[in-house]
């Protein structure tokens, strides 16, 4: 069975498509308010749940899209790139990125959008990324073994749990919807609190 997607594009079209995809991506990031460190950090102080809503919402939309299109035979999932798993570096890298997020107010993608809309802190964050990547490259030989540890290849959740993609997709959707409900409750409770006792600082 041959599927139409993913397309095999010529270099010329490829450049235009990737700029366009980036453009739309950046546009929606900015629309979501992710060019503002104030809004982003609000997630970690339970003031503003849009990070969680947007992240999980987008994952669920794209995941369900991928799933149904591959069931319909339009998309060949074997040709879709799935990030490889390196358990320990990814765990540590996530911790570093999370720490950088709460310290600096952004993550790499959102800092680009922030800098593009004139946020100077976003610009400094962006410069910091280059510094971080540069330093990481310099010291990688020293931590090379760690950086390659826990390699599991392009492991997916269905493989981990030994079940079908459909079941996992359903579970992820259910967890996301649960998270949305919690987010809504939390924001509702906060509004009520502020209405009763005034705004907290």
């Amino acid at each position: 069975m041959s599927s139409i997607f993913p397309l095999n594009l010529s270099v010329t079209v490829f450049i235009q498509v990737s700029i366009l995809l980036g453009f739309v991506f950046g546009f929606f990031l900015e629309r979501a308010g992710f060019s503002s460190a104030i809004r982003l950090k609000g997630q970690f102080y339970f003031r503003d749940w849009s990070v969680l809503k947007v992240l999980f919402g987008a994952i669920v939309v794209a995941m369900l899209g991928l799933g149904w299109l591959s069931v319909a035979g339009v998309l060949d999932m074997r040709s879709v790139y799935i990030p490889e798993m390196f358990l320990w570096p990814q765990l540590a890298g996530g911790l570093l990125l999370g720490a950088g997020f709460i310290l600096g107010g952004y993550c790499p993608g959102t800092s680009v959008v922030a800098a593009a809309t004139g946020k100077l802190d976003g610009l400094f964050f962006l410069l910091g990324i280059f510094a971080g990547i540069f330093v990481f490259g310099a010291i990688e030989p020293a931590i090379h073994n760690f950086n390659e540890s826990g390699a599991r290849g392009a492991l997916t959740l269905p493989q981990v749990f030994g079940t079908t993609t459909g079941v996992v997709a359903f579970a992820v959707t259910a967890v996301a919807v649960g998270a949305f409900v919690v987010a809504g409750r939390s924001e509702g409770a906060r509004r009520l609190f502020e209405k009763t006792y005034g705004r907290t600082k």
Partner: protein
Amino acid sequence: MTNPVASPQVSSQRMIKKHHVAIMLLHWFNALVWLLELNTGAALIQSEHFRFAPQWFIVLMTGIFGTRANLLRFHIAVGLAWITVFLVYGIFGWRTYLHQEVLEGEVALDRDDWNWLHIRVLRILGRSDEPLPPQGIYNAGQKLFALAVYAMVPLIAASGLVMAFHWGSPAVAGWAVVIHFISVAVVVSGLKIHVYMGPVFPEEKPAFFSMITGVVPEEFAYRHHRKWWEEVKMLEKMHEAGELERQEPARSSGFVKALRMKQYWPPYGAALGLGLTLLAAFLLVGQGIGASGGFTCCLAFVISLAAPDYASSHPYRSRYVQPDAPVLMDLLVFELIGVALGGLVSGWLAGRLRWSTDKGPHLSERTRWALAFAGGALSGAGARLARGCTSGLALSGGAALSAGAFVFMLSVFAAGFAGAYLVRRLWL
């Protein structure tokens, strides 16, 4: 107007609207395209008769794109995008904002304009000190440039298409090369003055900034574009006298309203948009959308230019150095450029573009910048360690149900929530 003294109604504070946002966007898009196309085009010229760029420049440009073939592909890609955008603007924007401005304001030269040109030349030569005749929204020099551009652009586009797709016989292609070169040369000769007048020439500064803000000080309009100023004034007077019906607030479609709204979009709306974009990326290029990888490519490119031996001998860095393949011609780099442009346009439409710093109430700006830099460094290193960031790994990998992506997401949120408590003084 016989009274040369600024009348009391003319204020240097009041601003008059000059350009539609669409025109400003088009202008800067056009500027970017010309910058890219002139640079890549100069490096592409093979004929001895036409080549003018120094050898080092050709080596540099070819180096950026790896091979000459890639350079050519890029030149064609940008050119095609340029033609497409102008066609879209021409077709959909004609009635709204191009029609009147183009025909009446930009191109048609009247008697005053010819006199203006005549006196301007004499004044430059020091042969006259006559005052310049009053001008419309664009002066005669600008109109001449516009005429030249409008005449040349179809030639440039057509000859470019002929060369890119090998339409017609070899003789046609040969002529296309010559026409492409000459028509570009005509525009460039005017472009030099245009660029000098904009950002460099002090008297025209307000005109330059009007391309960013859309407005000019009334005083500038009064001094340099008297006839246009009079028109604006007359319209204002008619408004005040109630002769013109008050323009009812422009009825805009829901789509336009959503584009121009000042508030952020509701999170689920943005999530739907991002999710569909991600899905489109999987369908079109077979992978999601990443941000940190683009940084790595840029950095690797700079390092391999600055210190090629170090880059190729270093055990980790050498992974990102490919001797023959183009380093900058990477999906991720182009995506990054797109992300920045998309953010810029979105912020612009919503009126959110301004220099500012997001910080907690008890923090100085400098401290905030230092912390942002430190945070950036942490997340840069973290993204390398994890092989992706929030976009490329968590979002894109998460949608593809990569196990690593979910591990990464959990630890990002764990560190974020734990760290939030520790650094609460910075934000609250």
